């Protein structure tokens, strides 16, 4: 069973000759976390827009291949200030914006919004004006807004870009707990050091194509370290000329030394 399936997907943005994605195939099942890694312009954000059902429906452009999505998807974009509804003067209303748009009964909206606020540890901000929040706080509000809609597929584009270290850890914990509930998570991040503990599978994108797909140990392979996409520990091991397989994390490295 899969929640998202991309089979041979090629996508062109409007008025462009070269595809942003080329022949991409990827499945995401329930309870699974798939992380996309790659250099800027590799096509990760485009793939996420397709997964969320926004490309080509909203962005325009042309898609070849097939996309199957068996459930409702919600996407969090990297810049929180462009994602506020502009229609809410409190954080609670901002988080409730999407849930209200689904036409749910008021008590259902309240239940989901309160839960999302608690999960993002922002219940104390509920009565604040979103315009007065920091970038990190706003990012958590936006994520809460998507979770309040109870999507089966959660799509996250650089979800920790605006967050401090504690906020980043909280989001990764949240991602794991979402997967534990059976939700499928597809994310793109440059925080590769977190991925061994977060992701079930890694997809390495290069120039719009999937160059490699596999377990997080992929982040410790020579090719990824050469491309600067391995974890910091693996990169150090690789640069020092120590023998493969390289450790992924500090904990792995410590165990190896012992």
């Amino acid at each position: 069973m899969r929640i998202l399936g991309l089979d041979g997907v090629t996508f062109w943005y409007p008025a462009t000759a070269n595809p942003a994605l080329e022949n991409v195939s990827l499945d995401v099942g329930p309870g699974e976390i798939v992380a996309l890694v790659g250099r800027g312009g590799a096509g990760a954000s485009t793939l996420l827009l397709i997964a969320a059902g926004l490309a080509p429906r909203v962005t325009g452009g042309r898609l070849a291949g097939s996309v199957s999505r068996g459930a409702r998807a919600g996407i969090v974009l990297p810049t929180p200030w462009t994602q506020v509804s502009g229609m809410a003067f409190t954080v609670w209303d901002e988080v409730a914006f999407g849930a209200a748009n689904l036409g749910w009964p008021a008590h259902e909206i309240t239940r989901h919004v309160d839960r999302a606020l608690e999960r993002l540890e922002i219940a104390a901000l509920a009565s604040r004006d979103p315009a007065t929040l920091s970038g990190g706080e706003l990012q958590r509000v936006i994520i809460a807004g998507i979770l309040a809609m109870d999507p089966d597929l959660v799509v996250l584009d650089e979800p920790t870009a605006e967050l401090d270290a504690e906020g980043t850890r909280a989001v990764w914990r949240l991602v794991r707990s979402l997967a534990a509930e059976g939700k499928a998570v597809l994310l793109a991040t440059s925080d590769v050091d977190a991925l061994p503990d977060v992701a079930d599978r890694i997809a390495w994108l290069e120039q719009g194509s999937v160059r490699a797909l596999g377990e997080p140990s992929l982040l410790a392979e020579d090719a990824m370290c050469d491309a600067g996409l391995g974890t910091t520990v693996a990169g150090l091991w690789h640069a020092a000329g120590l023998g493969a397989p390289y450790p992924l994390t500090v904990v792995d490295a410590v165990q190896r030394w012992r």
Partner: protein
Amino acid sequence: MSALHPFSLLAIAAALPAFAWILPAPGGGLATTLIAMGLTLTPGASPGSTSAGLTPGWRSGLVTFRTALVIAAPFWLFLRLLHDGPTTVAMGLRITTMVASCVWLVAVLSPDRLVEAMVARGWSLAVAYLFAATLSAVPVLKARARRIVEAQRCRGLSPRGSVANRLRALRALALPLVLSALHEVDERTLALETRGLGMGVRRTPLAAPLDRTAERVARWTLLLLCLTALIRRLA
């Protein structure tokens, strides 16, 4: 005033310019101008005050009053260049009513209450959002323009000094302002889509504003008065 139902605020803001054009000049225009300018002084009427949660008061009302005056002043200048004295007064008062009504409406009407009111009446959310986004764009663009001016100042471009200096500064402000606004439209479209704006499902009103019977009667009365005045004027 901001406690009134959004439709009542819209009705007042629409009725005043209508009366200004229907009633004989200059008396009609003078009366509507005085009312509209008076409204801009009402507590809570300040651009951005509703969204920023500032304490309402006469001081914020003065900002709205001044904004209306600053916007209306050039119209008087151009009218004086093109027309004789009586026509300038007649047209100027009408235009001032329109300007003051719009400025007051933007200041006093909170977009989220408008959306809730429209949705509660069965309007499509996309249409309601179009109205509300127009109103909420003013403080957003103002804040962004302020940031761009500060950034340009850091790079040594002063918006003060000679006319040439000011024109250069204006160009340096306008281009990034327009481009960033267009870029934001793209991202905001994606964000709103994913949050169900285009789903075509009837939105659940979270806190529909109270629409009192007295306000409904007042709105219908305003409409009838406008129609009566129009018929009498045409007769």
